[in-house]
């Protein structure tokens, strides 16, 4: 074949592609998806552990009653329909018939009630918060579950995805020590994929659950999660096709750019809407000079967040304007804006009396570097240079994972960086950082900076039990204005984690939960 013929053949292939797509619309069965799990999770039971890798992998094994689309509207999960009473107190779910656990036993409403009201409230902090609002949960027939709330809680309908309320088998867990149950190793759920083998340090092999209740699903035969601890090796695995999907921080941000350009790969930042990871520079509000609002406002002016996004996250982040992510409902862009301005920062510092000393230094502040990944180290270095511009010495302090959690949880820090998920509703993922009832020593991801404002407390409390969306918007807009003025923490970026996958695979991202989703509808064309 000479070059011309070859070109012709290639063009013919190209012409064939559209037909390929129409055919693929009748989704095909079979195929293997190879992907990465990083770091290796301690256990696969999502009811017992909610770290990101556990949720990514366990999401294929354990399901929730609902799913949420990119706008975080509820979609059928194991519940085919649901009903909320007008007073917002009664939630009735109708399950799909014929759902079975991986051990062949049927899944009924009894399992749902047991999971939500007995197991999860003990093992899942987030679920404990949500289900503590339930007065009673009933299973009138095998396919019906009724939750009766103590008082209205608008975001309650957002608490049923596979990460917030995974359903586990009652016949295995009831009456046992949940965490020590030997069946945990088998990870028996209802999801489209079941555990075949887990070779520690190497891979987790999931295969099709043949008794899955949705017709034709799952399309894939198997999913293999490979454990690859080294970042460069993970990038290489995606580049040469050993794996066909990466999620969260599997590949470092500086590699993302390269993969955007790779022809056979699809790049998206969709599928994180439910989490909307929101990042900030945390300042201990109890300690001078951070106890002065003007200092915290100066910090907002000091950090060139556009440059921060560009240099540290290589543009895979959006500048945050306040406590609520632009991807979360009730976000209000009409708040005070802090543009990058060293002069304004200086003026604020001068105004509060924090003037440069004889050596030109205004203050020395210790900054604990979170030990999670390299980007956190780079971020600390970026902040240090930002503060140096006004004569504030940021002294970086290194620590390990346990040390960071211990210091921040016990308020034994001056500054650090933090990142929290928004969980689809300010009442679930935002309020916890700012309400004074959540100032709890020893608990991470609470109001660790110690911000306390009775008005903010009142607004958040009222918004949580209000059902009318317009009224809630009003309350949350107000709270955003107050918080942005007070700057309890200096919001930096909305991190946009990527999902990168081989174009041969379809339906990878179908909901706002993205890579944590069940993957029942994923198919290979």
């Amino acid at each position: 074949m000479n070059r011309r013929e070859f070109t012709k053949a290639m063009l013919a292939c190209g012409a064939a592609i559209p037909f390929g797509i129409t055919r693929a619309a009748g989704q095909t069965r079979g195929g293997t998806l190879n992907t990465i799990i990083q770091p290796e999770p301690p256990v696969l039971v999502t009811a017992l552990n909610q770290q990101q890798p556990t949720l990514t992998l366990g999401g294929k094994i354990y399901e929730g009653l609902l799913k949420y689309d990119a706008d975080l509207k509820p979609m059928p999960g194991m519940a085919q329909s649901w009903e909320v009473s007008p007073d917002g107190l009664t939630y009735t779910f109708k399950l799909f018939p014929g759902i079975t656990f991986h051990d062949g036993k049927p899944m009924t409403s009894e399992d749902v009630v047991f999971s939500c009201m007995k197991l999860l409230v003990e093992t899942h902090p987030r679920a404990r918060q949500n289900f503590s609002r339930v007065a009673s949960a009933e299973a009138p027939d095998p396919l019906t579950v009724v939750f009766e709330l103590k008082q209205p809680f608008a975001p309650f309908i957002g608490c049923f995805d596979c990460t917030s309320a995974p359903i586990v088998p009652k016949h295995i867990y009831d009456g046992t020590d949940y965490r020590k149950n030997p069946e945990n190793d088998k990870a028996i759920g209802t999801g489209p994929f079941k555990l075949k083998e887990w070779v520690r340090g190497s891979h987790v092999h999931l295969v099709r659950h043949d008794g899955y209740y949705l017709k034709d699903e799952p399309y894939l035969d198997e999913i293999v999660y490979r454990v690859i601890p080294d970042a460069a090796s993970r990038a290489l695995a995606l580049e040469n096709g050993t794996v066909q999907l990466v999620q969260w921080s599997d590949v470092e941000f500086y590699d993302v750019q390269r993969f955007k350009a790779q022809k056979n790969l699809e790049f998206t930042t969709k599928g994180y809407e439910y989490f909307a990871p929101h990042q900030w520079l945390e300042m201990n509000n109890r300690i001078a000079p951070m106890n002065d609002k003007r200092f915290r406002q100066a910090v907002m002016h000091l950090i060139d967040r556009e440059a921060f996004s560009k240099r540290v996250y290589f543009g895979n982040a959006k500048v945050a304007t306040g406590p609520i992510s632009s991807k979360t409902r009730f976000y209000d862009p009409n708040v005070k804006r802090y543009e990058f301005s060293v002069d304004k920062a200086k003026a604020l510092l001068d105004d509060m009396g924090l003037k440069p000393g004889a050596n030109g230094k205004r203050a020395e502040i210790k900054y604990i570097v979170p030990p999670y990944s390299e980007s956190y180290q780079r971020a600390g270095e970026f902040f240090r240079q930002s503060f140096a511009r006004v004569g504030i010495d940021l002294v970086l302090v290194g620590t390990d994972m346990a040390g960071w959690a211990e210091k921040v949880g016990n308020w034994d820090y001056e500054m650090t960086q933090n990142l929290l998920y928004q969980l689809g509703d300010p009442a679930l993922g935002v309020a916890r950082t700012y309400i004074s009832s959540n100032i709890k020593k020893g608990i991470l991801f609470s109001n660790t900076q110690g911000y306390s404002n009775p008005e903010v407390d009142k607004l958040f409390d009222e918004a949580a039990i209000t059902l009318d969306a317009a009224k809630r918007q009003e309350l949350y807009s107000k709270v955003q204005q107050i918080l942005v003025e007070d700057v309890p923490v200096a919001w930096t970026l909305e991190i946009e984690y990527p999902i990168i996958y081989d174009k041969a695979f379809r339906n990878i991202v179908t909901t706002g939960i993205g890579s944590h989703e069940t993957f029942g509808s994923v198919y290979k064309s």
Partner: protein
Amino acid sequence: METVRAFLRHPSGMIGLVLLLIVVVVAIIAPIMFPVSPWEMVGAPFTPPGEDGLWLGGDTLGRDVAAGVAYGARVSLLIGIASALAAMAIGVVVGAISGYFGGKVDLVLMRMTELFQTIPAFVLAILLVATFNPSLLTIILTIGAVSWPPLARLTRAEFLRLRHREFVEAAQCQGERTWRIVLGHILPNAISPILVVTSLTVATAILLESALSFMGLGDPNLMSWGFMIGAGRTVIRNAWWMSVFPGLAILVTVLAINLFGEGLSDVLNPRVSRRRS
């Protein structure tokens, strides 16, 4: 003077000295060569060498690699010398007491030294730094604490050799105080091999510090070569210059110190120098 002249005639020793002087000069004039802090993001991230006025390129944040290498020389030399001196201080004191007094004191001190020698130095260093939080001082003390045993053994051997010499016994007969005998008579005669080993300890100390920084256990406020390699390691496939240049800097410095130390050893070792003359 004779020693200096002998050293000047020592070829590899001189190469070491010249290289070392270059490193020292770079360390001294780093703030003149690069007036902005090596942490300042002066260019675009991933700038290749030679572009944008960054002749050794920019790192992942756009910081000047050349400035980092120059300022890193200060950190490496400071930590290398300070921790070698710390090791020498511990080693000489332990070795001198052990060698001079002998008996049970010697037994106890030498068992302790052996204990330290059986634990791999790097593992112990990681443990110590991780426990005491990495900072300039803890790193110096840690490297000192894991590097003293060879110096203690050497000092002890020298003291054992010298303590029954006539001039020492004469001093003892004259009723001189013990500390005067040790410091005034024995130590000056034992100092040359100790200096040689100390100079070589500087090299291992620099390597240890680089390894600690590479592991992320360095002082995060110091731009050191190990830190630069550690930070550049993950991107080595896209940007070799971030780790290669600081790596070369370590290579050159450690090589220079070793050559210098060996030259010093040849010159100071009486047996060898006698053979020469």
